[in-house]
Every structure is written in C-alpha cells, then in structure tokens.
C-alpha cells in the first residue's frame, strides 16, 4: 500500500487537515524505530487505498526534542511515497525553513499553504507560482478549517502518488545545513510580501486585556472557574444519567438473570465485575466534555497565554503555566487533567505535572470531605475545615514539584508561539472528545476492571465472613497494617475504607456504611461518636493525599507508558500522606492533652 506522511510545524492546522482528509476512521499504530504511537488512517484516494500517517508537529528537522527525533526515526525506518507538508501561510517567513529542510530528504512532496484566509486578513501575500518554481514541488493554498481548496489538495496528492515508489529518507538531510539560511532569506524576500506595519489586529487588542499586567491573572482564573463550572454543570447530570442507566440494567436485566446462582457468584458479578464496568463508564461523560472545553482553550490560543501569565511562579517550581491549567482542571477530575498534559513536549515537565495533578482535591474526594466535616464538625467550623483541605492540596502539589523538579527536569526552554486567537470548530472538538473517550476505555478500562474485582475479592473472601468485616482478607491486612495506621489515629475499620478508596473515592462513604453496618443516614451519627475531630481530620488528610483512584493510576500508566513512573506516582503520595497525617495527629493529640 502507498503511504503518505503528513508533516508540518505545530499550530498549522495539520491535524485539522488530517481529520478532513481521513474522516474519523483513524487508528493508533506502532511503527518501527519509534516508541510513541502515531495516528494513521487508510483512505481511498482515486482508485487506490492509501495509508496516511500523521507525524508530530515539529519546528525543525535538526532539533533534539522528542517529537523531532520521532519524525527523524520514522523517516529513517519507514518508506514513504509522498510527504504532505502543511504550512501556515500567515507565517511563511519562518515556516519555509522547515519546508527547505524537508526538501533535502529527497522525497516527493506536496506543500499545502493553510490558513490562507488568515494570511489575507493580515495583508500577507504569497506568490504561489513563484514559490512552486523555486521549490520544484506543487503548492496548494487552502483553508483546512473551512474547506476551501481542499478538493484541489486531495486531487494533487492523488496525482503525485501515481507511479511513485516508497523510499526512506536521505539521512544526510538530518544534519544541520548552514547554506539553508541564505536560501531561506532569498526565498522569503521573493515570494512572501508582508505589509511593513501590521494593522493592530484583533489578537493584539484581546491580548491587551487578557495579558494585562494586573487584570490578566484574575481574568484567567475566572475563565478557568467558568470552564470548570461548565464541564460539571453539564457533566454531573450526564454522569448521574449513566449511573441511573447502569442501575436500571442491573435491576431489570442482570439480577433476574442471576436469580438462580449462588450468592458468591452473584456478588462477584454484580459488586465486582459490574461495578468495575460502571466505574469505567461513569468517567466517559466527563472526559468527552473536558476535551470539548479544553479544545476551546487550546485551539483558541489561550493556553499559551496562560503559560505566559503563570510562568513567573510555576517556573520556579520547575513547571510552566500550562501545568497550572492542568492542575486546576484536576480539581474537577484528575483523569482528564492527566490526559491534558499531552500538550507538553518535554517529558520531564510532563511527568512532573502528572505527579502533582493527583493532589488536586477532585469532586469525588469533596463528597467524602463534605460528609465527614458535617458529621464531625459544627456548621460554623466545617467550611474552614474544608478550606484548609484545599490549601493542603496546593501545598502537597507545590512541595512535590520542589522535591522532584531536579529528578524530572524540564529539558525544554520555554519558547512558545503565541498564536493569533482562533475560533475552534465544533467538528474538530467533537472528534477529539470521542477519540479520547475510546482511548480511555481501551487502554485504561481493563486495568480498572481488574482492580475493582481485586478489591471486591479482598473485602469478600472468605465468603462466609461479613463483607468488608474484620474477618475478610481486607480485615486481616488492616490488622497487619495497624502498627502503621495506629499512629495516625486511623483504626482497622477505617483503614478498610481506605482500601475501598483506592478504587474510587466516591465509594468511601458507602464503604464506611457497610463496615459499620449502618445505612448512610445513620452513619453520620455513628461516625461522630466513634471519631474525635482529630481522628477525622487525620483521616481526611490521608484521603486527600494518597492515591486518588484506580482510574488515575490507569491513566498514569496509559500516558507515561512507564511502570516505574506509575509506581512512583503511587508510592510517593502514600508516603507523603502518611507523613502529613502522622505529623498532624501526633502534634494535635499532644496539644489537646
């Protein structure tokens, strides 16, 4: 099969072009010579099936960033028939440098000048025929977003493929070439005509407000808050809807079907397997919505502005402004926030950000804290207790960044483009949300299911014991662990609840009800008599800091592709949780005595 490699700089609309070219029949594939997955699709071009591979956006063929190496290795190890290069017509003065480097590869090429509409608005003119002659490749102006010029581009790809043969790249093109600089200067002067003084564009005017030295940050925090509200105002009813459907299916279909089987099998299938499936599905609405809204922030160009605003502070922690956006997103749900770190190119920066996100007090943990604070504290103190947990959440994140910034160094200098503001297209956002959701189910789903079943087994075996009681495996483990948890004021029953909390924080309150043999209404009273405020606060500190949930771990693995890192992301929060709870409990009990 013939193969087209799609190339270009970041922010050129390359992915939009890819989506338009391939529809939604994409898959994620592994390729010889490289470790990351690339998106590819098979499409019918003319009368032939052709494979299109979307390579990462790069600035330079000679650079040392991860993406640049991926592109180089791909082209060294995989034969391609044609390079389809996408360039931003509005920035051709610098984008042509990549085009010239790619020409050196010695492969047939079609150059697409995207965002012609934007270039025209800026008063930039490109002499297409002159450029075609100078480069010796077909040049096609288009707007991938709105579709103008797209049919022409498609037929040109088809034409260029005819009679072509697949080849690997000429490796000498990968070494730096000083000559290129002069060629570039000359070429730009000949074919690109830029107005001498650009009229104050809309972007400049928006920037004056959004990047204002005093107003910028409050506006950014406010828009993050609104975004967040939007995700959860729409998402929570959807999540409840999914839960309702799952409950209905359980009641109407599965329970009757299992009526004749033994209680152990029923419990295994319903509380183990079915709950596991439910855990996976309940995340889907939030993931889709999160990426819809994230798409707005990212495609509009606001994300790099956020980096600009927050960098002075986050830079000192070894992070950058984008880490802060993801950390804030984590206060809704850690899972999509972890997936969102993919915009970061430096692996060290990305892993460090992934390490701090789980400390964000997510909505699931909030449920536990609201329940416990109202049960144990007076209505007047409860809000302050809750607020202190939010402060603790930031403290744990920033402390972690400070401790690990040397081990996970941010290798890339912050040298980002601030692209003009753009309106994102709904089609592309939906495509992205759908893609992320299916990715989550496929990669993280099995792992989550397995974990839920494992915890079910621990809390139900031996089957004649009371579920989640002290005689189960979980109870025995809690017994062994009691020397560790007793100094934190967490007794055996409470530590079984922590084991449940490993699956998902939403189930902690339910688990406590099962453990104390009470319904959830009466539970508050029982907790209030069992726990002092010091016990309760120590327990909440532990719940806040230790591993948030199985789904977070599964995504940690999915995104980092490293078991070592995933192990660190479990072990470090556990250690920190223990240290913080221990310090608090010991100091508080001494002071209270």
């Amino acid at each position, binding site marked *: 099969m013939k193969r087209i490699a799609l190339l270009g*700089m970041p922010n050129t609309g390359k992915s939009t072009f890819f989506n338009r070219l391939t529809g939604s029949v994409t898959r994620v594939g592994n390729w010889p010579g490289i470790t990351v997955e690339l998106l590819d699709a098979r499409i019918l071009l003319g009368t032939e099936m052709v494979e299109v591979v979307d390579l990462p956006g790069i*600035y*330079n063929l*000679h*650079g*040392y*960033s991860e993406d640049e190496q991926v592109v180089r290795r791909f082209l060294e190890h995989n034969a391609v028939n044609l390079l389809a290069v996408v360039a931003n017509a*509005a*920035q051709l*003065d*610098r984008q042509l*440098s*990549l085009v010239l480097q790619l020409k050196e590869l010695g492969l047939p090429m079609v150059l697409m000048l995207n965002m012609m509409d934007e270039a025209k608005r*800026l008063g*930039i003119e490109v002499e297409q025929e002159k450029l075609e002659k100078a480069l010796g490749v077909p040049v096609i102006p288009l707007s991938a977003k709105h579709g103008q010029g797209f049919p022409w581009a498609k037929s040109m790809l088809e034409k260029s493929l005819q009679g072509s043969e697949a080849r690997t790249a000429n490796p000498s093109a990968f070494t*730096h070439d000083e000559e290129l*600089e002069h060629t570039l*200067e000359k070429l730009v002067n000949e074919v690109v005509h*830029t107005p001498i*003084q*650009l*009229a*104050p*564009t809309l*972007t*400049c*005017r928006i*920037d*004056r407000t959004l*990047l204002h*030295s005093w107003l910028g940050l409050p506006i950014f925090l406010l828009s993050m808050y609104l975004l967040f509200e939007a995700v959860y105002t729409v998402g929570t009813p959807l999540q409840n809807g999914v839960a309702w459907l799952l409950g209905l299916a359980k009641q109407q279909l599965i329970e009757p079907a299992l009526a004749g089987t033994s209680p152990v099998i029923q419990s295994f299938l319903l509380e183990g397997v079915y709950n596991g499936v439910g855990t996976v599905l309940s995340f889907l609405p939030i993931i889709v919505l999160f990426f819809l809204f994230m798409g707005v922030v990212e495609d509009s160009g606001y994300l*790099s502005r956020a*980096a*600009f*605003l927050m*960098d*002075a*502070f986050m*830079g000192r922690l070894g992070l950058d402004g984008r880490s802060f956006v993801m950390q804030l997103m984590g206060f809704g749900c850690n899972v999509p926030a972890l997936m969102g770190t993919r915009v970061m190119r430096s692996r060290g920066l990305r892993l460090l950000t992934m390490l701090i996100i789980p400390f964000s007090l997510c909505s699931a943990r909030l449920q536990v804290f609201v329940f416990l604070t109202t049960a144990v504290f007076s209505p007047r103190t409860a809000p302050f207790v809750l607020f202190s947990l939010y402060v603790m959440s930031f403290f744990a994140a920033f402390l972690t960044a400070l401790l690990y910034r040397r081990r996970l160094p941010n290798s890339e*200098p*912050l*040298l*980002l*483009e*601030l*692209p*003009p503001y753009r309106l994102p297209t709904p089609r592309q956002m939906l495509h992205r949300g759908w893609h992320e959701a299916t990715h989550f189910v496929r990669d993280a789903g099995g792992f989550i299911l397995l974990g839920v079943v494992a915890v079910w087994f621990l809390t139900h075996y031996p089957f004649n014991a009371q579920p989640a009681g002290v005689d189960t495996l979980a109870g025995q483990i809690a017994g062994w662990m009691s020397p560790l948890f007793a100094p934190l004021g967490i007794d055996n029953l409470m530590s079984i609840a922590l084991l449940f909390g490993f699956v998902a924080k939403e189930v902690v309150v339910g688990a406590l009800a099962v453990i104390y043999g009470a319904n959830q209404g009466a539970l508050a009273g029982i907790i209030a008599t069992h726990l002092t405020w010091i016990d309760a606060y120590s327990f909440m500190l532990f719940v806040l800091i230790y591993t948030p949930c199985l789904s977070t771990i599964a995504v940690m693995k999915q995104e980092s592709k490293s078991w070592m890192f995933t192990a660190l992301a479990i072990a470090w929060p556990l250690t920190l949780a223990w240290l913080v709870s221990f310090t608090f409990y010991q100091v508080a009990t001494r002071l209270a005595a």
Partner: protein
Amino acid sequence: MTLEQLPVGHKARIASLEGDESLRARMFALGLRAGREVAVIRRARLGGPLQIRIGSTDLMLRRSEARLIRLEQEAKGDHTTSAAG
C-alpha cells in the same frame, strides 16, 4: 545589549544568538535569527517571560533565554508598535 534589556515597545535588530546548539536551532526555527528585527510587546510581572514579535509571529520566552539574544544598536524608539503597553 541583549533582548532582555530592550524596553517594552522598542525594536532592534538581532546581532547574534548564544546558547547551545539545540536551543539556537529552535530559535532559528521560530524565526529568531541574525539580521531580523524584533520588538518587545510586553513583560510578565515578577520576572516572568517576555512577549516578542518577529514579522507577524508572536513568541514568548523566559528572560534567561532573552539574555542569550544579542542585539545591534537599538534601531529606534518606536511608539507605533500596535500592542505596546
């Protein structure tokens, strides 16, 4: 003089780039190269990054990187730069 010292709203021509090979390659790819005119649009507070403009492209970079960009004698104090302030 380096780019870090160029006041907001002023323009100057780049004389040379310092720093290691990979950083210079990246700067080059983003349009930062000797002979081109660069303007400082704004600076983030508290030692934060700079927003600069080259041709029609806006970039942000940290002050530590801006220090690596040497400028020719400042061209002119320019008050027509559209987004100054």
